[in-house]
């Protein structure tokens, strides 16, 4: 099986999808709908949304380290230079023009 091509590269701006559905979801609620950028591409991992239910975790999903400005997540009360960084699987991300 050939490796899938990563959809995003470091520096790309991305938005976390705002989805509300049941399951073993590893995308924290507070970061859904927020916009940040790709900090690192970690590579492919078995999909925890499948593994948690005893399935095979395939197809693998590319995992990214996504950085967000604290002010973009929590508003002006945060320090402008502070960041929150979250590990997010590719199928939760959409490109931002």
């Amino acid at each position, binding site marked *: 099986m050939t490796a899938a091509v990563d959809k995003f590269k470091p520096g790309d701006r991305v938005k976390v999808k705002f989805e509300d559905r049941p399951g073993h979801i590893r*995308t*924290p609620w*507070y970061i859904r709908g927020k916009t940040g950028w790709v900090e690192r591409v970690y590579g492919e991992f078995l999909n925890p949304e499948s593994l948690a239910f005893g399935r095979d975790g395939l197809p693998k999903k590319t995992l990214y380290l996504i950085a967000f400005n604290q002010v973009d997540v929590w508003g002006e009360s945060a320090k402008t230079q502070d960041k929150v960084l979250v*590990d997010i699987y590719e199928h939760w991300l959409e490109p931002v023009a």
Partner: protein
Amino acid sequence: MSDLTSDAHGHEHPKHELSDHAKRIYAIRDLLIEKGVITEKDIQCQIDYQEARSPANGAKLIARAWVDPVFKARFIADPKAACDELGIDATAINEFVVLENTEKVRHMVVCTLCSCYPRPILGRPPDWYKSFNYRQRAVVDPRGVMREFGFDPPDDVEVRVHDSTADIRYLVLPLRPKGTQGWSEDDLAKLVTRDSMIGVMDALSSLPE
């Protein structure tokens, strides 16, 4: 162990009232043993293994990184291989990433979803790491949390909170405290607290009493 009593299967259960979770765990354990999936010895070995892992592993890695820049580069580039060099078994970690603090950047680690933690390196997480309080506030108000640990990051420092939500386990490489030139690796390791490797505070600046 006077708190324990033997039952029909020949192994021990606590006498006092168990929580529902504990009852379920004991039931699953008994079934796994009865069906021959695992043995009593496997469980004891696993307990010994869990107990043997402690923040001393992390402190050893950090102290070596402080005194040996070439090791530090390897530790950051390939943390699991660096663990192997020091005889620390990190194979249980899927992916392991080291976050290097600098004068201008401090990292802090949380798992808002559960309690993901680099256990082979730091042992079991402290209770506060698993608390709802820490898991909520670490991402919203990291500086407030750090102040409660006695560390007030200067205004010109960038605080980077890592929410370890997936397969990656993070370890903070704290700054080497000033005035420690010429210290032995063993003494340096005593400055590396568990909390400094979670990132809620810097390493100690003098040896603990």
